């Protein structure tokens, strides 16, 4: 196997590292590579920070292992290689009446990546995380041998693998249980929320299958925390969805593209585009689930400096107060981009390091600068103080101490991981930065 020298980077393009990359096209080739030179497996590199970066080391690109191995139309169980993308699953199986039970915000994410981060979607309050729909994982160790693990066969290893950041081995393939998909169109109802209190009440009261809020990170004072609530249900329409050709961001955007006045103006227009009494629209599944996938390389909009995504989840008890504090800080700093989400989360999580907890999750992007790094550090501290968590798939600025405080099951996870990978062959920059495999 030839190794290719490549610059690895997260989607946020702030944390980077030079690494040697192999890209096997068959599971047998992957096994050969691991035997000779064990290294962490990476997928579509859509996590924002350094989860898929192994600077000055090696990594294995799994995206060419992307075949569907079997599908049972009776049960909806799909066995697929880890490099399959969520979009590929949706495109192939939606016409056959099935779709992944949980879909993250980008369809480019791979099956392996969705498992390793135990991702969630716009239906977390109802369906839980991606990992809760994983029936079995084929895990390849540093010795190149494959073991199929299920929640029953290896409960500890399974819980350390789901959301386990690739540290228990390379996820070669997995079986997931999909859900019926009645249509390729989704009915979306959009309503304005005038401020944070109203927004949180609307989110709590919503009984929709899919529910997500866009929040205006520039609004302050009376309008602090205003936004738009989107509730959605699959339809029974058989109409084929309209599809627009994806566009591409051809080059790094200049700084003014996301300067505070531009963002304020954009956000005001975005908010006011929804009539006061709300509105209903029909969208294609892909437009609703992966709104940004239509713009390829949208991370270039932040220019060469890249950006940080802050995402936290806060428990119900502290959510309102903490969100208010956070949004004030954000609005006062005037650094937010238009991409900001407020969502309700349920208790569902499948792994020891899974992100969600019952409460609310807030996610915002900030163009990378000294000021924004200081702001995100403040937000991270607020999240820790409030008993919340930050998301490893997004993080680039948390501290090792915060990770320990936020993830009480870390020690239990470490025990299983050390047994599975005693040599530390699967460590990545994220693991080293947050000292996730160093005993407390």
């Amino acid at each position, binding site marked *: 196997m*030839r*190794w*290719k*020298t490549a610059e690895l980077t997260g989607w946020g393009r702030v944390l980077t590292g030079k690494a040697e*990359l192999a*890209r096997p*096209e*068959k*599971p*047998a080739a992957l096994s050969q590579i691991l035997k000779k030179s064990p290294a962490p497996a990476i997928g579509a590199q859509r996590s924002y920070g350094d989860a898929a970066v192994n600077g000055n080391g090696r990594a294995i690109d799994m995206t*060419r292992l992307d*075949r*569907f*191995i*079997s*599908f049972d139309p009776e049960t909806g169980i799909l066995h697929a290689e880890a490099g399959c993308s969520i979009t590929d699953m949706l495109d*192939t199986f939606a016409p056959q009446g099935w779709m992944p039970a949980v879909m993250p915000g980008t369809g480019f994410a791979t099956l392996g990546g969705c498992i390793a981060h135990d991702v969630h979607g716009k239906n977390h309050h109802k369906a839980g995380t991606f990992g809760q729909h994983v029936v079995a994982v084929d895990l390849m160790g540093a010795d190149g041998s494959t073991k199929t693990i299920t929640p029953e066969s290896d409960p500890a290893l399974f819980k350390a693998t789901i959301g386990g950041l690739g540290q228990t081995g390379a996820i070669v393939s997995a079986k997931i249980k999909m859900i019926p998909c009645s249509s390729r169109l989704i009915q979306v109802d959009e309503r304005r929320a005038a401020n944070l209190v109203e927004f949180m009440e609307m989110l709590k009261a919503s009984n929709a299958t899919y529910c997500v809020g866009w929040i205006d990170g520039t609004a302050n004072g009376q309008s602090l925390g205003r936004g738009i609530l989107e509730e959605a249900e699959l339809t029974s329409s058989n109409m084929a969805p309209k599809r627009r050709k994806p566009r591409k961001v051809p080059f790094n955007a200049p700084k003014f593209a996301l300067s505070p006045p531009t963002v304020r103006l954009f956000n005001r227009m975005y908010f006011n585009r929804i009539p006061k009494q709300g509105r209903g629209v029909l969208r294609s599944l892909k437009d609703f689930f992966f709104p940004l996938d239509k713009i390829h390389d949208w991370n270039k909009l932040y220019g060469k400096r890249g950006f940080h995504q802050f995402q936290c989840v806060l428990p119900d008890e502290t959510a309102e107060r903490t969100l208010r504090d956070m949004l004030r800080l954000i609005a006062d700093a005037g650094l937010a981009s238009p991409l900001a989400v407020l969502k309700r989360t349920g208790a569902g999580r499948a792994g020891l390091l899974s992100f969600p907890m019952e409460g609310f999750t807030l996610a915002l992007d900030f163009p990378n600068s000294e000021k924004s790094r200081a702001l995100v550090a403040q937000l991270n501290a607020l999240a820790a103080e409030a008993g919340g968590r930050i998301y490893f798939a997004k993080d680039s600025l948390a501290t090792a101490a915060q990770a320990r405080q936020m993830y009480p099951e870390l020690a239990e996870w470490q025990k299983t991981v050390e047994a599975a990978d005693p040599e530390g062959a699967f460590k990545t920059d994220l693991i080293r930065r947050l000292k996730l495999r160093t005993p407390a």
Partner: protein
Amino acid sequence: MSQTWIILGAGSAMGRAFARKAATQGAHLVLAARDQDDLDRTAADCLARGAASAAAVLFDVRKPESFAPIYDAAKANDGIINTAVFVGSMAPQDDVDADPNVGDLTIQDSFTGPVNFLHGLAPIMEARKGGTVLGIGSVAGDRGRIGNYIYGAAKAGFHTYLSGLRNRLNRSGGHVVTVKPGFVDTAMTWGIEGMFLVASPEQIAQDLWTAHEKRKNTLYTPFFWRYIMAIIKSIPEPIFKKLSV
């Protein structure tokens, strides 16, 4: 009615991508390569993606006895039989210079082997009155260069055969596309220095399908290689012989 596609070299990245493309069009597939386990998995993948059927048949271009089972698997389906030939090998020119046998194998994998296979298949295609052969040649076959002229010579020979076969199959309603891909992002080119304008296997597969539907004679893919090669071919030999492009 669904047509049949034989895909020689279905284990390669381009072969796999084209198999998927044909699968989404509802074709019957006969997938042929050297690794049975891996082929079975590609067959299952193609079925999930809409193939009418997918047979996985062991095939080695250096073993002519492996050809007949493929003809038989294709003949088992009714209707038109098409073929896409992705086999070939490119040994580094240095290895060839060190050991002439290595050059022989490159010629066998990229030229004489595929030619023998296609020559056995031609009467079957003629009997079914139609069908397309997608023969994957190479821009390296357009002019001999110091870097890989054994491979280039093998591909040039293959191009000439394909042109003759096109002439022949045309009489029974069949067609042959001579395909000249530039750099494609596959295991063969992974990590090699000096690659530029690299195309994804999916892009190539889409181009191949379009060329099949439009019955193109020669396909440069991506298209701009036609112009790059036009320039390279136009360099006068007295100058060209001194270059190392």
